[in-house]
């Protein structure tokens, strides 16, 4: 009886592991598939048969179209980060001080761009910005991206603030620190890892955003995702795979950074308690 059960237990376990492996393969393989494609020495988007080559990376670097697109994406992402991070941080600070029942409503409003279908958001921005002359220009795109990135910053920073002991700010006040000093000397350093993680999310949100960019960006603001999208339609070359590989590496690094920051923030806030020996 026991043997039977343990054998079926083993079988079940094996099936579970196999299923998980399958799910992971389903999630990760298509993404990783572009890596060998990008190393193809030939001119077609196929898996390399002979040796590997970095030729398509060279092509990327040499092509003004690709470097321009990289540059555009980078500039717009930086501008978005610069706008969304302070705004989102301030919003998160405000929210964390709020005791009102309106708080969930405000959180829902801030996260609206996250939960709306992105194409709806894109169309909405298009109709809003067109009469204002903000389409076909970088300003409109940065504003739209900031709206998309803001909720990420608010959520990440708010999470890092909610673990903070409220007595810390009271202590700072009682010691003579006016509100701005409390913010700069106590709140900001303790929330810094969370704020930095929020900034990383804001950057990534903008850097690979495609739909809104398709609607709003002009030919001059052709961003990397748009360049890739149109590249696939026009001239299928392994250069696209090379660009994709670079994006994968960049995203992985940034996400890893964000996670490290988050953990650091947690450590800073909780501060492992030392045993209570001696006075």
């Amino acid at each position, binding site marked *: 009886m026991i043997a039977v059960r343990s054998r079926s237990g083993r079988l079940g376990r094996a099936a579970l592991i196999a299923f998980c492996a399958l799910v992971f393969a389903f999630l990760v393989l298509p993404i990783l598939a572009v890596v060998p494609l990008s190393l193809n020495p030939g001119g077609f988007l196929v898996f390399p048969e002979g040796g590997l080559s970095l030729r398509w990376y060279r092509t990327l670097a040499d092509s003004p179209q690709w470097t321009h697109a990289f540059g555009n994406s980078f500039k717009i992402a930086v501008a978005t980060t610069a706008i969304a991070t302070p705004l989102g941080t301030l919003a998160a600070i405000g929210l964390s001080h709020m005791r009102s029942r309106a708080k969930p409503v405000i959180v829902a409003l801030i996260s609206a761009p996250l939960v709306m279908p992105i194409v709806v958001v894109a169309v909405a921005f298009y109709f809003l910005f067109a009469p204002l002359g903000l389409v076909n220009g970088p300003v409109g795109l940065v504003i739209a991206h900031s709206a998309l990135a803001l909720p990420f910053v608010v959520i990440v920073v708010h999470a890092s603030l909610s673990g903070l*002991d409220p*007595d*810390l700010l*009271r*202590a*700072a*006040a*009682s*010691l*003579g*620190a*006016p*509100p701005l*000093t409390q913010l700069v*000397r*106590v709140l900001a*350093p*303790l929330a810094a890892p969370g704020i930095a993680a929020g900034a990383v999310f804001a950057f990534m949100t903008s850097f690979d955003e495609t739909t809104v960019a398709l609607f709003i960006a002009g030919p001059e603001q052709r961003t990397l995702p748009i360049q890739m999208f149109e590249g696939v339609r026009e001239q299928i070359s392994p250069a696209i795979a090379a660009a994709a590989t670079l994006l994968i590496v960049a995203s992985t690094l940034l996400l890893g950074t964000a996670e490290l920051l988050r953990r650091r923030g947690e450590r*800073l*806030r909780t*501060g*492992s*308690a*030392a*045993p*209570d*020996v*001696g*006075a």
Partner: protein
Amino acid sequence: MAVSASPLVEFRGVEKRYAAGAAAAVAGLDLAVERGEFLTLLGPSGSGKTTTLMMLAGFETPSEGDIYLDGRSLADRPPHKRNMGVVFQNYALFPHMSVAGNIAFPLRVRGIRGADAAAKVEAALALVRLEGLGDRRPDALSGGQRQRVALARALVFEPDLVLMDEPLGALDRQLREHLQIEIKRIQRALGLTILYVTHDQSEALTLSDRIAVFADGRVQQLGPPDTIYERPANAFVAGFMGENNRLAATVITQQGDQCAIRLAGGQIVRATAAATFTPGTAVVAAIRPEHIEMGEQPLPCCNALDGRVDQLVYHGDHRRIHVGLDGGGSLIARVSADRDVKPGDRLAIGWCTDRCFVFPAADGSNPGGEGS
């Protein structure tokens, strides 16, 4: 104006409701803190002690009334301009600063830097006996050390007043007693005015010059520890401060503060009245176990009752005897461990009139009286 004659802090008619229509967390609070005194707010959890302290520190606003510091209203003064050192139960040390950085914080925000600040930090560390630990991070300290740092940080800027909200509540008993002595030493050495909050009556008795006993948001009694302990103003204080036998009774006669009462078992005894009663009023008589005397013969000077030993409970340095009274009722007496009694023994017990206090029966929690 005679500023120096006015108390350092004065609560005048202060009331706090956290929400409109909610029960008052603090009500009818008139309390003065004199310069250089150690005043303790003592009461059970939820009695409004923290609320009182937070209103003084400026983190909560009174719904009614006003608080005065040096005769000036604090109504429009934000917390960072009140110049009060606050020590929190969970230390509230800044985790991203060293011990020295924490202690230097109030100096920095006051523009004191460099050698001046360093000397003050050193002196504060020496005061709490943490010399040489300035470079440590708070998370590398024990709980007792952290609270010393918090104390140093609250003292280094020479505040007018130090507020402490159950500062030793998170520490174990031995450490707590040790730090109580330290706090008292520092208070005496610097002549500090301290407003201290605790729910631990022995802590309050040890530390305080005066104690304000809180219950249900109101001060039940205000006075020096011995008065609070020996002459409780009402049944709540009598029950909260140490142990008390509570005997139901009715008043027969009263003359001044002396009265004669009839216990539920029919025995007639003399006691001290805490209020004016008309004959026939239902009352509670409170008497501490250590104030009950006993002998084999009837006792001369005191109220004398006969009873029998029901039960003996060993407490190490003493024993408690549960005595069943002839005619009904029971009470607990305290005797030294070497006294020879055993269950079933008959004995005479008694107490002096001034050790037994009589309170209105219904008053218990909310008499609203202060002193007596």
